[in-house]
């Protein structure tokens, strides 16, 4: 459900910024940027602080791990846009696209560390079933994941359960892979602020 205000309702300064992005990146402005820049005091500003904290704040999880979590949450929600976007960021962070692809294809057989696998299973369940039981948490703790790491992973899960819903609800247009690559480089260099 595309809203005209998210395409063309921005103020002059934001439109000028979009023009600069188009010139310097050689790519169209991603719909997620149009969303966070529209009436940024309502959603984009406060949400960017949540997302940056979850994705780039201090954590025992690497940036690649957290971007992989974001991609898996998006895939679970069947949000193609966010899955591709954050698979690109995770691949860049890890410098290993095969690892990301393997997880998104089959979490159970992917060649990753067991604590990460157990955590990804948990996020998938939270996302798919809306809730989890203490036994689910005990399974992750038993895999060697600390309570703080679980909280950090749940923060990623929260952020992308918001963003993915908005991407689908507002009908984000799928850009070419070059646009996602450009977006990934930006997010790895600057984060979500």
């Amino acid at each position, binding site marked *: 459900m595309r809203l005209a205000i998210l395409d063309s309702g921005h103020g002059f300064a934001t439109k000028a910024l979009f023009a600069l992005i188009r010139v310097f990146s050689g790519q169209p402005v991603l719909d997620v940027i149009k969303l966070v820049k529209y009436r940024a005091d309502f959603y984009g500003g406060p949400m960017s602080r949540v997302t940056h904290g979850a994705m780039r704040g201090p954590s025992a999880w690497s940036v690649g791990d957290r971007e992989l979590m974001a991609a898996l949450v998006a895939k679970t929600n069947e949000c193609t846009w966010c899955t591709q976007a954050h698979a690109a960021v995770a691949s860049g962070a890890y410098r290993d696209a095969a690892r990301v692809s393997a997880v998104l294809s089959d979490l159970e057989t992917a060649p990753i560390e067991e604590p990460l696998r157990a955590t990804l299973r948990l996020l998938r369940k939270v996302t798919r079933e809306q809730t989890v039981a*203490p036994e689910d948490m005990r399974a992750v703790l038993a895999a060697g994941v600390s309570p703080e790491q679980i*909280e950090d992973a*749940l923060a990623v899960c929260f952020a992308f359960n918001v963003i*993915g819903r908005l991407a689908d609800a*507002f009908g984000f247009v799928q850009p070419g892979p070059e646009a996602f690559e450009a977006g990934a480089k930006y997010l790895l260099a600057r984060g979500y602020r």
Partner: protein
Amino acid sequence: MSDITQARRALVARILEERGEASRAQRRAAFDGAGLPEPLRTLIDKVAKYAHRITDEASVRSSGVREDEIFELVVCAAVGQASRQYDAALVALDIANGKDGHAARDS
């Protein structure tokens, strides 16, 4: 650890309690996923349960609801559903970790 408690609280306070184009009651209803009239009820339900199935929602567009109101209500619905998932998971973690799962982890 990456503590998002304050940032998340600020986000929820902004979208629900401060000035908006939709009324505070409508934004709260969208956040809670309950209490909106049709056709908004169906849209908000889809945002929470299967956003990938949302298409044009012509009935919402033709109902006279303005785009800025739709924007706010969809945001509230998405944040509300994600908050319920997050809060339920934190309670489960607290119980598993030997804490009181009903102790307030306020949103």
